[in-house]
């Protein structure tokens, strides 16, 4: 098997054998090329990750004169018996269950529209992608104006519902998550669209020609040529949207009257994390939330690998 040194990432060549100059310079270059990134990864990912695991079993505070001590699984018990945390999980799930299918389907629809060989399709492509260049914070601030009780959204809704429906989106807990979903859709669907557009362009034209020679309808072509042709990227889009949706933070921090509000209607795992680990300075408990969040992402990733469509 491999030498133990190979698994510890030992940087010093142990007992250098007579090598050709070229191999030797390739060897030292390999280390020099790797060093900056490896060092940064160690300092800012590996160590904090290990730190999160360790801290989650302590009562560590951000600023506290008291000595840190081990508390076993107390933080995890605390978090998992906290109704606020489960409320956050529920909100994240609602957001994901709506956003993942709606955003993926809309992205596919937009991609199909702009993939047609029509005059001006590049213009529409650029327009749909434009919000990606806005950060979520800027998008949220703009939508604060539009979602105001007398904002543009309600003005349009009142026209269509003859004034019957014009909720106070951001102050009525029933509607705040819907508003968050709308803003998220606006701000990020272009990203998925572009990935699916690239996928559509890779589907061989011959397949469509063969299908139309066989007299397949537009729907038949979509089902039997388009969907199988883009299944890898479609699956990628769905899973990445799912993983990103659990990181929901910027919009729910900015849009409601207070972060996660009103009355916890948009409280998410990330808001819990920041409130606990930073706001309340409870580093130990915040680390436990971080570890649980990591386990969730890990689970989603394993799920993704497990169900990834196989090549036919």
């Amino acid at each position: 098997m491999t030498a133990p040194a190979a698994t510890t990432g030992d940087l010093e060549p142990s007992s250098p054998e007579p090598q050709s100059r070229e191999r030797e310079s390739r060897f030292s270059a390999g280390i020099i090329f790797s060093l900056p990134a490896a060092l940064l990864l160690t300092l800012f990912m590996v160590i904090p990750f290990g730190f999160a695991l360790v801290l989650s079993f302590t009562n560590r505070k951000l600023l506290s004169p008291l000595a840190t001590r081990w508390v076993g699984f107390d933080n995890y018990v605390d978090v998992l018996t906290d109704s606020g945390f489960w409320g956050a999980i529920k909100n994240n799930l609602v957001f994901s269950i709506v956003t993942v299918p709606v955003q993926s389907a809309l992205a596919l629809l937009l991609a199909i529209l702009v993939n047609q060989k029509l005059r001006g399709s590049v213009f529409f492509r650029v327009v749909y992608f434009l919000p990606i260049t806005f950060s979520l914070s800027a998008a949220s601030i703009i939508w604060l104006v539009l979602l105001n009780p007398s904002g543009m959204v309600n003005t349009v809704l009142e026209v269509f519902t003859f004034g019957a429906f014009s909720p106070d989106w951001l102050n009525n807990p029933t509607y705040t998550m819907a508003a968050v979903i709308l803003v998220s859709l606006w701000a990020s669907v272009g990203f998925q669209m572009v990935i699916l557009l690239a996928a559509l362009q890779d589907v061989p034209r011959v397949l469509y020609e063969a299908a139309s020679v066989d007299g397949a309808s537009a729907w038949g072509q979509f089902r039997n040529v388009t969907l199988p042709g883009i299944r890898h990227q479609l699956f990628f889009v769905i899973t990445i949207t799912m993983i990103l949706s659990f990181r929901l933070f910027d919009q729910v921090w900015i849009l409601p009257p207070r972060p996660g509000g009103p009355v916890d209607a948009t409280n998410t795992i990330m808001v819990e994390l920041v409130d606990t680990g930073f706001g309340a300075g409870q580093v130990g408990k915040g680390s436990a939330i971080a570890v649980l969040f990591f386990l969730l992402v890990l689970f989603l990733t394993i799920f993704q690998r497990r169900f990834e469509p196989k090549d036919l």
Partner: protein
Amino acid sequence: MTAVAAAVAPPKSKGIKKRVWPSYVAMGLFAIFFLFPVAIMVIGSLKADEVVIRDQTSLAAFNPSPFEAGSNYASAADTGNYFTSLRVSMIVSTVIVIGGMFVNSLFGYALARLKFKGQRFLLGLVVALIIIPFEALAVPLLLMMSEIQWTDTLRAQFLPFIAQPLYIYLFYSFFKGLPKELEEAAMIDGAGPYRTFFSVVFPLARPAYASAAILTFLYSWGQFLWPVMVARSAEVRPLPLGLTFFRGVPPVQWADLMAFATMMVLPVVIVFILFQRHFIEGVAGSGLKG
């Protein structure tokens, strides 16, 4: 010419006759959906504060009157500290993008082409680290930063984001896919690994660099969660945080906020429109690994 084109073009006799207006109607409606918030932002930044919300109930929303652009933008710059935040965002994003291109591609190249001890272990580590979202590291990192008194510094905002396992892996797979012949020829000509990388491999890898640079830039420019935790004073607030702090200054001046938002997105939008093809291809490239 036309005859040849017609002969070469795929036979879509039905397709050409098919009515195109439903597609245009759909595309047009979506375009309105994506553009009207942008219009509200720009027009709102030009008019008096008190009418921004009031005008929303009619088409007056799209009429920049009474015109008070000067005082709105001045307030965003002075009260909102726009230029301080712009400077912070530019420094942080530039260091992350340029530093990231450098260290991630070098590491990716070393993993793909150079032979050294521990290489396979490091590759496995990089792949494993891709799964860890930054958010899972934020709390312990905050503690580390506050222990060494780095909160309220710019380096706390860029150092953790330079090395990115995802981009290391992206470069790794890109370099793996390059034909080896050119590098071998360079080596035979006596070029060492450094010369080979910078004069042969680097120019070939432009698409990978463009893709990674654009994605990294969009991510770092929009960063919010980490600055919320680590940037306290006005001098180190990046644009997203500056914008939300500006909103927190009562009473809320909507026109001033729209002016700040416009100045915040404008540089990126201009770059995007100039290089839209690269942006779209760059982002599309991120889906290839699916």
